[in-house]
């Protein structure tokens, strides 16, 4: 009876057929009449359903611009982005609608400090009118305990470690049963040990839910360890420079980090990124995003 509280994971049988993102010839110019900054230039990228797609590139190269366009925070100047064959934004509709099918997890963490972790997680289903408060809370608590956070469900974000907060934030995204998780350097400020725990818990979540993941990072080892593909972007304006296929079987664990195969992939990525980083550094421009 005690274990019966476990909810079905937020997934279903055709989970792996949803969450295809198609980015076609997307260009973004900030302030076209004034500063005219070309952030993304004719960028195309096809992301398969249930793919873990890692985006790396120099600071301010326009990675976050792309994420913002998918999430519906920023408009695009031209091109088109589709989700599962349906247009999110395109020629006649530069700004995508924001929706719970594409939930964002932010760099600095955006759990609402005035809500407990359980209430944070329950927020999505409540505002969408899918569940009443009690049911949403019950589901939130069971999903939190699934993620190993049962003991802190009634704590405020300020009272738990950053690692726990970030895990809770991913749970908050998953309760909406999204097609795509958009992660913008979620583990940036963490120490290596916490990070590795975060990686394992994210992989565990992924293996369970098979949600498409669009993950921006600066950490190349993180990119190879988590990703199916690593997209190396050029310095601003962002274009795809190189795509590294990571053909390493899942489930993966930390032992992978010391394998030869892993090191070669990291090296290969590093060379591509380094070239762009040097260009960006020499351009000497301030970070855009």
């Amino acid at each position, binding site marked *: 009876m005690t274990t019966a509280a476990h909810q079905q994971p937020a997934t279903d049988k055709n989970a792996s057929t949803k969450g295809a993102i198609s980015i076609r010839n997307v260009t973004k110019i900030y302030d076209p009449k004034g500063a005219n900054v070309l952030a993304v230039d004719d960028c195309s990228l096809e992301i398969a359903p249930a793919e873990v797609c890692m985006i790396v590139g120099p600071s301010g190269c326009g990675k976050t611009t792309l994420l913002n366009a998918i999430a519906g925070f920023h408009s695009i100047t031209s091109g088109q982005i589709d989700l599962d064959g349906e247009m999110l934004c395109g020629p006649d509709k530069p700004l995508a609608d924001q929706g719970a099918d594409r939930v964002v997890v932010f760099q600095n963490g955006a759990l609402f400090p005035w809500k407990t972790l359980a209430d944070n997680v329950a927020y999505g289903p409540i505002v*969408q009118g899918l569940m009443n408060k009690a049911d949403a809370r019950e589901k939130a608590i069971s999903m939190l305990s699934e993620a190993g956070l049962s003991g802190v469900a009634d704590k405020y974000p300020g009272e738990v470690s950053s690692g726990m907060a970030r895990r809770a934030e991913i749970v908050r995204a998953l309760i909406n049963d999204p097609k795509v998780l958009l992660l913008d350097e979620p583990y940036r400020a963490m120490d290596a040990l916490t990070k590795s725990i975060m990686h394992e818990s994210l992989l565990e979540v992924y293996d369970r839910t098979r949600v498409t993941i669009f993950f921006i990072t600066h950490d190349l080892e993180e990119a190879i360890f988590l990703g199916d593909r690593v997209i190396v972007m050029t310095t601003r304006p962002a274009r795809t420079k190189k795509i590294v296929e990571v053909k390493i079987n899942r489930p993966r664990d930390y032992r992978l980090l010391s394998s030869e195969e892993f090191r070669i992939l990291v090296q290969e990525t590093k060379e591509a990124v380094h070239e762009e980083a040097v260009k960006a550094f020499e351009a000497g421009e301030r970070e855009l995003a």
Partner: protein
Amino acid sequence: MGKASKRQETLGARAKALVSDLTFRRGVLSILIFLTLWEIGFRFNEWFGVMVPFVGKVDAPSIVATRWSDVVLLPGYWESWYLSMGRVFLGFLIAQIIGIPFGLAMAVNKYFRGMFFPPFEILRPIPPLAWVPASIIFWPTTELSIMFVTFLGAFYTIVINVLGGARAVDIQYLRAAQSMGATQWDLFRKIILPGTLPSIFIGAAVGMGITWEVVLAAEMISGGGQQSGGGLGFFIWSSYMGGVMDQVIVGMISIGLAGYISSSLIRYIGYRSMPWRRMF
């Protein structure tokens, strides 16, 4: 019976904990040292051969305490408390009721801000006390004009804090909420409002302080005629006019206590309504 004794027990335990609390002891000690120095200053005009004119002129705490014990028996003294407290709380409350929605509306709507911010900013630098003559003419009774001036004292601080606080709510919270399907109304009610709450209480704490300053000055100016007046400000003023210096000090300390009670109340409400913050 068991319940009552239990409550007594916890109360006793609380009192015990308070007395053994270091911060509390330090506070009591510092007040005692202050009173002792004051007393000594009154008794001896010279400290180590140096004249201390200021301290010597002020009646000693022992004299003030004796006077106070007489004053507390006068109904007029408590009436002064009642009048000042009433003015402060009413003026403050009205300032909150008008100021919070006004600040929030300016924060979330740029048209509203464009319309009302410029006149607000022109009126804001005018000190509340500069309004006293105009408001005495404008309002039918002295009571209303004092309350109006009190209201002004808190209003500007409240609005500025609410406006700044609401506009400083992290855009990531708004985006996170939107990406989970929140409507505009959800954003306002569940993100902007709780996100502004800390600023609302800062505005309230500062506003309360200004309210006490203003009400006292307004009471001194308006006087204690037949029509109205009174209050702690007038209590001090009339004591001064009557040359009862120790009573002036009784009035001053009374205001200190009244202010302390008011701000404790705000702290307590803030503490209760923002469990995620240990603000003060």
